[in-house]
């Protein structure tokens, strides 16, 4: 059914986007989502295979993402460097690591089927992803933690002056955000596509960035955005099956759709005021 496929296709984008919303709301931009997704997909299969359980694989992918997010956060927050460059580094590193890893571990060229004992139920993961989005919305808008996070991203000086540890908040948000991206990657390899390849993410990390803007940094709206992209993703497979359009044209559709959406939406989107700007105490 096209609807279920749309929803399933939307999940990795939703997870990465919600994670990035958290990070960006706190003031840190992480464009390394693509690399994180790849690493998550790879680690998920690797650990899930060896441990005999997809759930352990998912947990491992999530944990690796958390660690890498801590690294990015440390670079952004404590070393106060260029966050975009660090994100590109993450992407390059992820791509290289996964391409090498698939070869080195399984001795195959760039493609590995996920063994059946490592698979995870795609519907369970879908529900979990929606729950995460909902929880993120609630935390950001209805709790004191959310207020602290938003303050760190809008006006870190003001937040700091009332005793909010902006550094810790940003580090925490970046780490958790990254863990959701790698979680999305594990979903790709362990639940949705059941395979891991060296470019399994296929630009989804960047589509998630577009979703963040589309959603105006609101996790609930990110669901809508992810569904739109998921629709085109699912559509391309359907068009192929029915031979309506050439394979390559159908594969282009999600990217063209993203481009059009992003072009149409800018102007009304308001990013957190201190996004991408490192915070100095004095």
């Amino acid at each position, binding site marked *: 059914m096209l609807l279920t496929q749309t929803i399933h296709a939307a999940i990795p984008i939703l997870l990465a986007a919600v994670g990035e919303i958290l990070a960006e709301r706190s003031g840190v931009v992480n464009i390394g989502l693509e690399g994180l997704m790849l690493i998550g997909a790879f680690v998920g299969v690797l650990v899930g295979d060896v441990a005999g359980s997809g759930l352990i694989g998912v947990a491992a992918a999530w944990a690796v993402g958390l660690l890498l997010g801590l690294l990015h956060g440390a670079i952004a927050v404590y*070393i106060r*460097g*260029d966050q975009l460059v660090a994100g590109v*580094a993450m992407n390059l590193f992820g791509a*290289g690591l996964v391409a090498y890893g698939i070869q080195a571990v399984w001795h195959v060229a760039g493609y590995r089927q996920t063994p059946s004992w490592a698979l995870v139920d795609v519907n369970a993961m879908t529900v979990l992803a929606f729950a995460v989005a909902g929880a993120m919305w609630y935390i950001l808008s209805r709790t004191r933690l959310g207020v602290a996070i938003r303050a760190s991203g809008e006006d870190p000086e003001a937040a700091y002056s009332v005793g909010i540890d902006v550094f810790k908040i940003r580090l925490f948000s970046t780490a958790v955000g990254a863990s959701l991206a790698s979680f999305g990657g594990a979903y790709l390899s362990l639940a949705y596509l059941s395979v891991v390849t060296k470019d399994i993410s296929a*630009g989804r990390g960047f589509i998630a960035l577009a979703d963040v*803007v589309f959603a105006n940094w609101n996790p609930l709206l990110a669901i809508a955005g992810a569904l739109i992209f998921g629709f085109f993703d699912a559509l391309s497979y359907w068009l192929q099956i029915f031979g309506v359009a050439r394979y390559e044209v159908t594969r282009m559709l999600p990217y*063209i759709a*993203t481009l059009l959406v992003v*072009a149409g939406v800018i102007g009304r989107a308001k990013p957190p005021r201190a996004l991408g700007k490192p915070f100095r105490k004095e």
Partner: protein
Amino acid sequence: MRGLLDSLLSLAVAIAVGAVVAYISGYNPLLVYYSMFVVPFTDVVYVTSALATATPIILTGLTFALGLKAGLFNIGAEGQTYMGALGAVIASYLAASALALPLSFVIGISLAVAWAMAPALLKAYRGVNEVVSTIMMNWIAYWLVIMEASTTFSNPMQPSETIKMPPSARLTPLMPGTSLTAGFFVAVAAAPLVYWLLERSVIGYELTAAGLNPVAARIAGIPQSRVVIYSFLLGGVTSGVAGVLQVAAMPPSYSLATNLANVYGLGFDGITAAMLGRGNPLGILLAALFLGLMEEGARHMQALAMTPFEFVKMLQGIMILVIAVRMLELWRRR
């Protein structure tokens, strides 16, 4: 000078980490690095091959650097290179003579620039973030060029390639049996040319000022739209040239592989070179040569140490990660 030390440090760390990873994966680290860094120098064929590999990377690195200088994140070199290569193929289709060479550059550069203009205009007039738009354009180009290469321009005698460049239009190897062509000198000339442009021209001044303080620049009569468009335009030219050379100067096939093997990844290699070279055209030249060496070495590593080619990609990733940490730590101390 500090920049050079940073790059060397990142290399050292990457080699160290890589050695550990190689060892864990069951490969011999000494053999790996020997084949990567020493073997390429043992035969002139290898050396010239490394230089030929470096050629497009110099150009795509300049694309990214031109963006950085203007305060922009242009990661569209990948797609622009594909379009440049497509242009060379189209030229081969249209002209069966030596004319195909200049025509390649004309069509290839035009296509690449057009490809760069889309994100540039979106950024200049709609404020669309160029990170997302250039990546989308990369993927669209990927599928578009694959489609054209495998249908309209496919080579009936060798379906995994496009039609070949007419023999009289090809850039031939400088030494028989090697893969180095005059294309290398085109790329090497491009770096100081871009440097000179940035330092000595009015538009270079405007890009530099706007890249560092876009608001002050706007007030001073340098509209952001001009900055974006010029930066992306120049970047599109260099990547377009890279793409054309990957067909017109690629012995022995002088065609585009339908899986884009001769152009895939060049854009991202360029980003790596630009980062290692600190965004400075002359630094990029050195960095690209180094990357060319690494990749040539990787081929030997595959044969001699049985290590997968992608190991070198992972090394490069670690290098950039270390640079992202180290270089920015120095930034902090200003």
